[in-house]
């Protein structure tokens, strides 16, 4: 009941911007609406986590992992709306978008959030597929003039991927039917499939897992299906980029993990699916590290780093056990840090009108507040303690070294490369004073805006999470949640 209400409220939010007279008021209405989604989502997610029992209603089911995703989504859609204010103000003032487009922008976010929420709380694999497919279409709506290439690449790659994912869902459905769950929709229920997983045909579940891994892996940005990701993330408006990296990728990855759980029970252990995840994770981490080193555009840099982090999460679930719990922490920590950085990047784009490193310098003087917050977010993303990513990477590496030394070696080298690349590229941008001669000085100074508040909230939550996972209660919570999907 409450779950359907949450999704419904979020979806109805798409009408909110149209009741107001001008885009400024529309933003207030949207913010009010998204606060409601935030409150409802937090209540639902927290109540499941506190009680420790899954909440299910019809097609929906919130277990521990889904609760974490619901909390993440409801928090981040709220901060994304917060930081949309300065983006919209700027674009409207500069005449880049008109009022109708501003309203459409505000209307698409609740729709996107609604389908994201339904993808994460769907118990029915078919419904989950529909929701994931719907995100493909919604993201394509954000295509702006000039980003035709990104839109086309995205649409073709993700549609193809998601079609293969549908094949995987069908095979799982078929396996369910073969195992005797014949009542239509029930044969696609994840909870029902998990219960009968021991008798599901192992070869069928292998096929289903591979198809879903390739299919949803396209969405999750796993290499080699990642090629749309840097384009889409860098050409979308920054608050949306934050949502894409922070929400869409984890949701798609969790959908893969749900199939992994099914395949593992049916196969007897997690060795087979784990090995596949490790290969994809390793590829993602290594390739992203190489591309991070040579980026010329800071939004693309952040996008490649998202691929790297999704690779780390895939790797950690491949290793399994306590590393899977660390993977979950990593997923949450990355989502919070990366979206904070994208929000910050949005402020930088607004001032410098460019996402290229060679056009942006001395951010610390021009935008002192953003620079400080951006640097803090950067350090937390690079897993400097007390970042939760520090603990997660530490555990993944220490578990991985004994179980899969080569993969962990690749991970360590890649982590070093990424850190080097980030420092090499972002520090001159933030603190360097190099400027091409004759270029006009960008006016310095900024006022405190809502997007700063949004970033700050992200950093505070991130730090709190960092402290929480060190505590006994925190680690126990994440271990018990991770055991539900691994």
């Amino acid at each position, binding site marked *: 009941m409450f779950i359907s209400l949450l999704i419904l409220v979020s979806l109805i939010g798409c009408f909110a911007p149209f009741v107001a007279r001008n885009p400024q008021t529309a933003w207030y209405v949207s913010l009010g609406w998204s606060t409601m989604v935030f409150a409802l989502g937090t209540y639902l997610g927290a109540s499941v986590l506190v009680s420790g029992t899954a909440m299910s209603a019809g097609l929906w089911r919130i277990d521990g992992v889904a609760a974490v995703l619901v909390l993440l989504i409801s928090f981040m859609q709220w901060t994304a709306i917060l930081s949309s204010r300065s983006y919209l103000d700027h674009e409207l003032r500069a005449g880049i978008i008109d009022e109708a487009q501003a309203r459409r922008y505000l209307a698409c976010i609740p729709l996107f959030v609604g389908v994201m929420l339904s993808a994460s709380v769907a118990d029915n694999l078919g419904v989950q597929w529909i929701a994931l497919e719907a995100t493909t279409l919604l993201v394509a*709506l954000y295509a702006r003039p000039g980003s035709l*290439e990104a839109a086309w690449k995205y649409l*073709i790659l993700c549609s193809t991927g998601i079609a293969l994912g549908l094949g995987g869902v069908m095979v799982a459905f078929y396996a369910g039917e073969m195992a005797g769950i014949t009542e239509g929709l029930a044969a696609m229920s994840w909870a029902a499939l998990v219960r009968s997983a021991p008798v599901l045909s192992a070869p069928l579940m292998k096929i289903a897992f591979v198809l879903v891994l390739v299919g949803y892996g396209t969405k999750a940005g796993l290499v080699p299906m990642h090629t749309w990701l840097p384009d889409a993330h860098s050409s979308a408006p920054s608050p949306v980029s934050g949502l894409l990296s922070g929400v869409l990728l984890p949701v798609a990855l969790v959908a893969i993990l749900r199939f992994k759980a099914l395949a593992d029970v049916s196969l007897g252990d997690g060795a087979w699916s784990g090995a596949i995840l490790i290969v994809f994770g390793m590829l993602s981490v290594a390739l992203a590290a190489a591309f991070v080193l040579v980026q010329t555009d800071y939004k693309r840099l952040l996008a490649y780093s998202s691929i790297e982090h999704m690779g780390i999460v895939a790797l950690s679930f491949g290793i399994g056990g306590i590393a899977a719990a660390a993977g979950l922490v990593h997923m949450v920590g990355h989502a919070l840090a990366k979206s904070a950085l994208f929000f910050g990047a949005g402020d930088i784009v607004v001032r410098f009108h460019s996402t290229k490193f060679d056009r942006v310098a001395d951010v610390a003087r021009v935008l002192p507040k953003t620079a400080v917050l951006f640097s803090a977010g950067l350090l937390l993303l690079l897993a400097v303690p007390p970042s939760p990513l520090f603990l997660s990477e530490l555990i993944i590496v220490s578990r991985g070294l004994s179980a899969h030394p080569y993969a962990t070696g690749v991970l360590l080298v890649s982590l070093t490369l990424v850190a080097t690349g980030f420092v090499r590229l972002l520090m001159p941008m933030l603190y360097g004073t190099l400027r091409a001669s004759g270029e006009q000085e960008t006016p310095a100074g900024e006022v405190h805006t809502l997007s700063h508040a949004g970033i700050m909230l992200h950093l505070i939550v991130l730090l709190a999470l960092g402290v929480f996972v060190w505590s006994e209660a925190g680690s126990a919570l994440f271990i018990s949640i991770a055991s539900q999907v691994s």
Partner: protein
Amino acid sequence: MPDIILFLAAAMVASAFVLASRMRLITFVATFRTLSVFLALYAISLAFLVGDTALFVSAFLIIALKVLLVPAILLRTAKRANVSERLSSYVRASSAGFLAALSIIVAYAAAYVLPFRGATYAIVGASVSLVLIGFLLLITRKDLVGQGGGFLTLESGIFTFGLALTHGMPLLVEIGIVFDVLVGSILMLALLTRAQHEHASVDTDHLRHLTG
């Protein structure tokens, strides 16, 4: 499995094979239309055979979308914008035909190995053939029309695959799938129109600034 089902599956594979080597816009779209007609007939026959009325909905939507709407809009866009008659591809027509034939052989070999005991071997093979030929088009074609056609062929293959395995998914899921395909096709057409508008061409050679 009745002969009509097998015949229609074979007809789909044959039209996909022909589609792979069509290099003119008009014949490409016409062949795609033929493929979709066979797909719709397939769904209708299956609906009669297993008595699943939900399949009529699917068949109706296939006719509306893949037989009528998408091809018609493609042709209209092309005519209005004076697109060149020839589609562009990385491989010549004859090589594309050879690759398509190879895909069909691989598909049937794969279907033989795959553990779908309850499904008809010939139909699983046909569906995998459609998927592979769809991939072939996606990889070898350079223009948006060819790639879009490739995606829709692949999607038809997945749909056939689902029918072969399960004789129809639950209605709710089926409606969702069809709806998504609908919106996807519309978006692709919108992009196609915009590409024509911006570059006066639907060739993806104009779309390669974003690399690395």
